[in-house]
């Protein structure tokens, strides 16, 4: 039932994803939330590349998907940190409690 090859990578990916999810839900520092998002994206990339190795070993579909995930991650970090700087300039804080500008 437990095949050592693919399953171990998928379970590692699931563990890392859940650690990242826990961090996103609990942290109050916005920069730490972005770090945990990066952990989640890396976990997804591990599972995509494991699938690429074991399920599509010749066409490399999973690795191509992982490249696009990396592109989206880079864009996400750039925009996210720009937003953090803008809010920090207004509020002098990176605490999630103070990120309520859009709330009314």
């Amino acid at each position, binding site marked *: 039932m437990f095949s050592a090859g693919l399953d171990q990578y998928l379970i590692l990916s699931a563990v890392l994803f859940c650690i990242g999810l826990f961090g996103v839900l609990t942290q109050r520092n916005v920069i730490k939330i972005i770090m*945990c998002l*990066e952990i989640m994206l890396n976990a997804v990339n591990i599972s995509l590349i494991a699938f690429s*190795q074991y399920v599509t070993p010749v066409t490399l579909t999973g690795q191509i998907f992982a490249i696009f995930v990396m592109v989206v991650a880079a864009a996400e970090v750039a925009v996210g940190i720009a937003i953090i700087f803008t809010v920090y300039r207004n509020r*002098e*804080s990176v605490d999630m409690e103070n990120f309520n500008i859009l709330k009314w």
Partner: protein
Amino acid sequence: MLEIVFALLAIVAVASAIAVIVVRDIFRAALCLILLFMTVAGIYLLLHADFLAIVQILVYVGAISILIIVAVMLTRDARQGQPLGNLKYPAVIVAACLLGVVVFGIVNTAFVMPDNVPLQETVKPLGKALFGDSGYLLTVEIATVMLLSAILGAIAVIREK
């Protein structure tokens, strides 16, 4: 042999991922995140994804972690770190339930694995797949436009009036 290497990398990856959340000093958390990125690159090497491992080092260890460290340095009250929010126990329950469901699904699924020998060197096939005639050329173009617009958007957001 490979099993031992994988076990070591997995232990370091999970430990550094936990350290990112647990460590109070946010600069040390960023260093733990860099360690996690490097172990993930090692896992890519184990999976014969040599190009992806190099891209992981270049993009994550080189660029994204530097961006995060710059953000840490430029925000003043980030250094001492804050305690966990009041969502702690629901978050534990949600994450544990998700982990249980996903692991159950992984263990009980019979994946269709072809018997082909995996490619040992992936740079040339990846280039042909990304830029070849029948490949992902349109997706590559869309990704480049998205990256350019994201960078322009970041500059527009951050610029002082």
